[in-house]
């Protein structure tokens, strides 16, 4: 090929000293760099360079339809060779041109792949020794090229004779490492992928070529897109180069994303400049321009296809969504940009490539909706995979007035989204609830992800109609199929005295995901009431939404309530699951004898706290050292019958400690105090005072909690003796 060498500018020198030229020293180092150091992937380089030479030689001989031969190394024939049927080489050509670095006969025409005069030396990247067999016009010569003792490449003529063999050249070398056999195979597969005429490969029975799978062929002539690939390649003269333009975003702008689409772009030989190793392109301005021109052409072809499709969509909302969808695909991104710039369709806008700003949702002021169209809007969103709807409120802006004050203005922005729906309220009441119920209970398609918004449009002045036609025109007419009358939506079945219509929730702790964060409480679906065992008793809280309706408290903290029950120490309270029953179902659930309002239950349990429970709670509250529970063995050792210690502990005889939180019990008692006639806490307080006296009378008692019983008894006797027992 013709080389892209820079034009030779004449240097104008004046008033300078001696001028000398740079030189290249023909040393072992220089040769090693040029034949081995040049290539990163050496085996691939050899296969590629020798094959390109073979192709070039066939071009020169006018035999472009004749394949060349490749022999892959194997155990029994451990050599790699390439034999072409081109022009061959004369003895002079072998010894003069073939062996001269940078000498090439192909720099005058773009018919040839080669030009640098380096490829024929590439076997030295792998081996110290290869043979060249050249046949030209009845003369055959065998030459051995080798690295001599000084590290410099040399060539020896091994044989010459007259021959009837067809013209051509065979390059052959032995592959020393048998683990490289498969590498030659793999690299050959890789290199020959883009060869227009594939060679005849021997030496490996199962050799097969890679046939590239395309997604789209000839987007424009000579540009295809690959299946399942994001990397684009430039193909020039049978060789594929990766396209890795430095600073591509700046150089190519929006076109750069096209390179993410796995494009295969074919260039004529000479259009692109490449690295001397031919392992990549050289990004001189000409290379970049050639690639850019091709991308521009691809994009304008895509744009015209896109324009045709987009123009065929009449509804502006649907067209905007179509464009938005295409914009998210790398192949079409720049085409959409071009189309939008040129045609300015409604509801879309290009804004600094921020894809989330591409769709422009129309905005209508709340007061405009009211005055102009007699419409009020409520809205909610529903999510894929979710069973709830979230109410939405209108947006607002702060508008600066002429007098410098700031006024808040309210508006609705109608989401341009394929799931957006408009519900026209033709009912008296309950249209929003009905719509929510409808969308909660309408299953979505598997590929319909994300959150969608439903707008419910109602009359403000009930005596006048809504001006729907004008309103929809103002927002560019969303598709008719997206508009529904509320009366046509699914309706919730009312609870009609059957348990199967009663939804029950249960209060559960949700793992908060961290060791140190307290757990949140959530209401989880526990199924319908008919799935519960009718012979068992369940305790519920009435709910409105997810908020409990309490008989005693307004600011009901469900988490505290749950923990208080858990920690109050009263067995009949702490082990209960708390269920939630929705407001609408309460009247019915009240008729079920096995469903009990938990607040009633608490009141009842607190009322019926007996002495045993009270004393157990007291014991837990006062006996920090395990010395006040009744212990026969200590009492036995105490001599004074009237000892205050004995008097105290006898009151605890027969009771055991119950673990509880005083605060929790207090909370419950306070909340349900009006209904509770007996408060265990007063008893606790009384005993706390008594115990304090005991500890004061026997100051060392608390240190004896691990002492043997008789020693505790002895200590009590000692104090009793000293202080007297009355």
């Amino acid at each position, binding site marked *: 090929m013709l080389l892209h060498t820079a034009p030779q500018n004449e240097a104008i020198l004046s008033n300078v000293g001696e001028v000398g030229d740079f030189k290249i020293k023909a040393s072992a180092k220089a040769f090693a760099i040029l034949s081995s150091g040049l290539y990163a992937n050496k085996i691939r380089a050899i296969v590629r360079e020798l094959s390109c030479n073979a192709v070039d030689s066939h071009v020169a001989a006018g035999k472009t339809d004749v394949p060349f031969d490749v022999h892959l190394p194997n155990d029994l*024939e451990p050599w790699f060779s390439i034999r072409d049927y081109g022009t061959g080489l004369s003895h002079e050509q072998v010894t003069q041109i073939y062996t001269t670095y940078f000498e090439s006969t192909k720099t005058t025409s773009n018919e040839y792949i080669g030009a640098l005069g380096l490829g024929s030396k590439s076997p030295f990247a792998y081996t110290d020794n290869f043979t060249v067999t050249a046949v030209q016009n009845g003369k055959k010569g065998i030459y051995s090229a080798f690295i001599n003792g000084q590290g410099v490449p040399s060539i020896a003529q091994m*044989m010459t004779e007259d021959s009837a063999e067809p013209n051509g050249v065979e390059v052959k070398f032995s592959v*020393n490492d048998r683990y490289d056999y498969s590498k030659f195979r793999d690299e050959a597969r890789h290199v020959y992928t883009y060869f227009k005429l594939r060679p005849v490969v021997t030496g*490996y029975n199962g050799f097969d070529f890679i046939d590239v799978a395309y997604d789209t062929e000839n987007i424009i002539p000579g540009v295809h897109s690959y299946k399942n690939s994001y990397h684009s390649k430039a193909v020039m003269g049978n060789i594929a180069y990766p396209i890795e333009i430095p600073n591509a975003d700046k150089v190519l702008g929006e076109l750069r994303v096209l390179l993410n689409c796995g494009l295969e772009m074919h260039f004529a030989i000479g259009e692109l400049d490449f690295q001397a190793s031919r392992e990549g392109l050289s990004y001189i301005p000409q290379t970049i321009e050639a690639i850019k021109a091709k991308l521009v052409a691809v994009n304008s072809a895509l744009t015209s296809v896109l324009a045709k499709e987009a123009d065929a969509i009449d509804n502006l909302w649907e067209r905007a969504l179509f464009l938005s969808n295409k914009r998210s695909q790398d192949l079409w991104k720049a085409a959409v940009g071009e189309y939008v710039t040129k045609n300015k369709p409604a509801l879309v806008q290009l804004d600094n490539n921020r894809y989330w700003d591409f769709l422009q949702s129309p905005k209508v002021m709340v007061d405009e909706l009211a005055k102009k169209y007699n419409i009020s809007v409520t809205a909610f969103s529903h999510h894929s995979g979710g069973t709830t709807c979230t109410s939405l409120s209108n947006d607002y802006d702060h508008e600066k007035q002429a007098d410098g004050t700031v006024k808040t203005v309210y508006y609705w922005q109608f989401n341009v989204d394929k799931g957006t729906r408009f519900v026209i309220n033709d009912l008296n009441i309950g249209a929003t609830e009905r719509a929510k119920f409808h969308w909660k209970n309408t299953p979505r398609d598997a590929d319909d992800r994300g959150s969608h918004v439903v707008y419910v449009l109602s009359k403000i002045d009930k005596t006048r109609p809504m001006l729907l036609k004008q309103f929809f025109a103002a927002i560019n007419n969303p598709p008719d199929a997206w508009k529904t009358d509320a009366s046509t939506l699914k309706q919730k079945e009312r609870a009609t005295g059957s348990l199967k219509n009663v939804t029950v929730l249960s209060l559960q702790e949700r793992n908060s995901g961290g060791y140190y964060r307290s757990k949140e409480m959530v209401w989880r679906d526990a199924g319908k009431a008919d799935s519960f065992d009718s012979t068992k008793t369940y305790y519920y809280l009435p709910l409105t939404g997810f908020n409990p309706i309490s008989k005693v408290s307004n600011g009901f903290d469900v988490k505290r309530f749950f923990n208080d029950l858990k920690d109050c120490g009263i067995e009949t309270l702490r082990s209960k699951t708390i269920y939630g029953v929705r407001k609408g179902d309460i009247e019915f659930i009240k008729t079920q004898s096995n469903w009990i309002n938990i607040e009633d239950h608490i009141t009842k349990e607190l009322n019926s706290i007996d002495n045993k429970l009270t004393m157990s709670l007291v014991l837990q509250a006062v006996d920090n050292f395990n010395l006040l529970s009744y212990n026969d063995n200590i009492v036995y050792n105490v001599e004074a019958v009237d000892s205050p210690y004995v008097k105290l502990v006898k009151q605890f005889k027969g009771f055991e400690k119950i673990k509880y939180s005083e605060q929790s019990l207090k909370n419950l008692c306070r909340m349900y105090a009006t209904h509770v006639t007996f408060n265990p806490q007063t008893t606790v307080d009384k005993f706390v005072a008594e115990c304090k006296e005991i500890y004061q009378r026997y100051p060392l008692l608390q240190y004896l909690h691990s002492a043997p019983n008789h020693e505790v008894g002895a200590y009590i006797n000692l104090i009793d003796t000293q202080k007297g027992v009355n």
Partner: protein
Amino acid sequence: MAYPYLIQGKNIVVVIGNKSHTISKTHITYQKVLDAIKAGDWDTVKDVIEPKKVVLNYGQGNVSVQGETLFWKGVEMHNALSKRMIQMLQDGFPIEPLVFFMENLMSNPSKRAVTELYGFLEKNNLPITPEGHFLAYKRVRNDFMDIHSGTFSNAPGMICEMERNQVDDDQNRTCSTGLHFCSIDYLPHFGNSDSRTVIVKINPRDVVSIPNDYNNAKGRACRYEVVGELGVDPEEAFTAPVQENANTTSYDMGGSQDWPNPQY
């Protein structure tokens, strides 16, 4: 006549007739070529310069080549055996043990057993014997009785045998009836510190199945001969492609290492 040649680095280039031949150090006949060139023995150079030709000669008509694939009497040779053959060729053994081995193998009535045996031989580098059997290891009790039942003796010289149809031929039943042998990889998995290891000689005809646990490291046969006790480190027991016994000292039956220098 002398041929033009070039010896350099790892490679030798020889031009014979109007054809160039090139061979590297790792190739099977490199040393022979080098020696022949040094000795000026040009006829030998011509014979050994092409590995393919050498292999064909070595195979004595049993072997043919297509591309890189070897065929034994027209049937593609399993990789395990073609590798073995090349190894034998390089180490200077005659082809006969392999000929006998192939004949024995072909008389195995079960195609499945043969296929499984290929896998076993490929995984485990076990030698064949001059009469075309192969050697393997077996763990036995201290008194040479079998570890599993303790009922039959595996003392050197014993021939153990059972009816072929009594041996479990399902490779998925990993512990079952049959006369077991194993490769070096299986040795640590069986027996205890008191156990001995013997070398058994198995006719490939008598192999019934290779259980698929332990990565093809053990097998079941219906007959084998105990040829000796392992007297050396198991790693050093088998070093040549053809051996008569392990490289033991106490039970060496002699002769295995003294093959005459083969002629191609």
